[in-house]
């Protein structure tokens, strides 16, 4: 507070904000019978790195993972909130929520705070009821869409055109409706995701350290890690 403001008791140049951007990037790709969801583990504030190994991904069930970029204070709370709703649902119905149900729940949860939002940019990845890969992408207030691939976070604009180029699917308005999931093999899709993070790690200062790559398929959830530059 400036000395000249002290007497007045107010600050005309108020700079406190409830939000912060902790940086980082999330990517998800849906395949025919798998889904890949990945996020880096760097948490930053301003130009500093707070930690090199903080996860942005929460496993909500064997068929549904949530990755959240943005303000990690809100991201953690949001993930815990959804996990608790999943536990209660399981308690009441003796089964876990499917990916599509969780997708709608996340949208509603975000819109509930429409006028003081969760500063989170989310991607939900998993398998739908037929076992096909599903990716749902969100904005901060809950607008969502099921797509074949998505990325969010500080590296989003670097990676998105690369995914467009490699995974572009047919026009979504064509009838009969075609799935946006890629026909790429699991191994090829993992390589693509690794390339994307290598690119983002080069040009985005907030992306780096380690990438957690989760692969969801009929056998469950598997984790691979990728080292990125530490600079």
């Amino acid at each position, binding site marked *: 507070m400036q000395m000249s403001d002290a007497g007045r008791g107010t600050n005309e140049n108020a700079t406190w904000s409830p939000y912060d951007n902790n940086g980082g990037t999330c990517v998800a790709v849906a395949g025919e019978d798998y889904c890949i969801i990945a996020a880096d583990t760097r948490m930053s504030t301003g130009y500093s790195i707070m930690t090199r190994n903080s996860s942005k991904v929460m496993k909500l069930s064997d068929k549904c993972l949530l990755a959240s970029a943005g303000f990690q204070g809100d991201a953690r709370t949001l993930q815990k909130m959804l996990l608790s709703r999943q536990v209660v649902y399981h308690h009441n119905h003796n089964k876990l929520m499917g990916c599509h149900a969780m997708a709608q729940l996340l949208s509603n949860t975000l819109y509930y705070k429409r006028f003081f939002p969760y500063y989170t940019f989310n991607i939900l990845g998993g398998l739908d009821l037929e076992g096909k890969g599903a990716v749902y992408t969100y904005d901060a207030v809950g607008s969502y869409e099921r797509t074949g691939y998505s990325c969010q976070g500080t590296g989003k*604009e670097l990676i998105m055109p*690369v995914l467009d180029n490699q995974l572009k699917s047919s026009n979504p308005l064509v009838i009969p409706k075609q799935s946006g999931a890629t026909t790429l093999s699991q191994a090829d899709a993992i390589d693509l995701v690794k390339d994307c993070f290598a690119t983002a790690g080069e040009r985005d200062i907030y992306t780096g350290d380690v990438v957690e790559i989760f692969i969801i398929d009929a056998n469950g959830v598997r984790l691979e890690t990728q080292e990125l530059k530490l600079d």
Partner: protein
Amino acid sequence: MGLMSYNGGGIIAMTGKNCVAIASDLRLGSQSTTLAVDFQKTFKIHDTLIVGLAGLVTDMQTLSQRFKFRHNLYRLREDRDMRVSAFANMVSSMLYEKRFGPYYCEPIIAGLEPDGTPFVMGMDLIGAQGQSEDFVVAGSNTESLFGVCESFYRNDMSPEELFETVAQCLLSGVDRDCLAGWGGIVHIITPEGTVSRTLKGRMD
């Protein structure tokens, strides 16, 4: 809105093995309105030197005319074409002259040195030089252009490979920018000459 993104555009320059490529999109707009779909943002200075200009089109036109003028004068006096690196320094000076009232343009300079070495350089609007071994980008959405170039670039590409790479990078990069697109033009500069090809892209 920002003077640098008023008209929109995207430019990439990339080095290959004894060749360089420079490409631009073809859209000219006035914020959200598209005014032209055949508007090149690259200007040939001589056989082995092309300048691309991103930013406000009025300044792009003034600068390209001034570059032509200065190079013509140089040719009359020296009886030879200007070397790329020398031209780049001249551009830098011209921009810095207007340090406190700049031209709202970011030039990309691509060419071959007299010994055939590839040269690409980007600059900010007041002339800060950023020479690169691999590629430089400019325009209304540089993030998406950086992403594709960083992903698809390889060392020592032949002119054919370089064309394919630059074309894919430009089209994919501008597709994520509402203010750039409507196809593109790619120039491949080699010691034997320059080949220019027009690309068809998304028309939105």
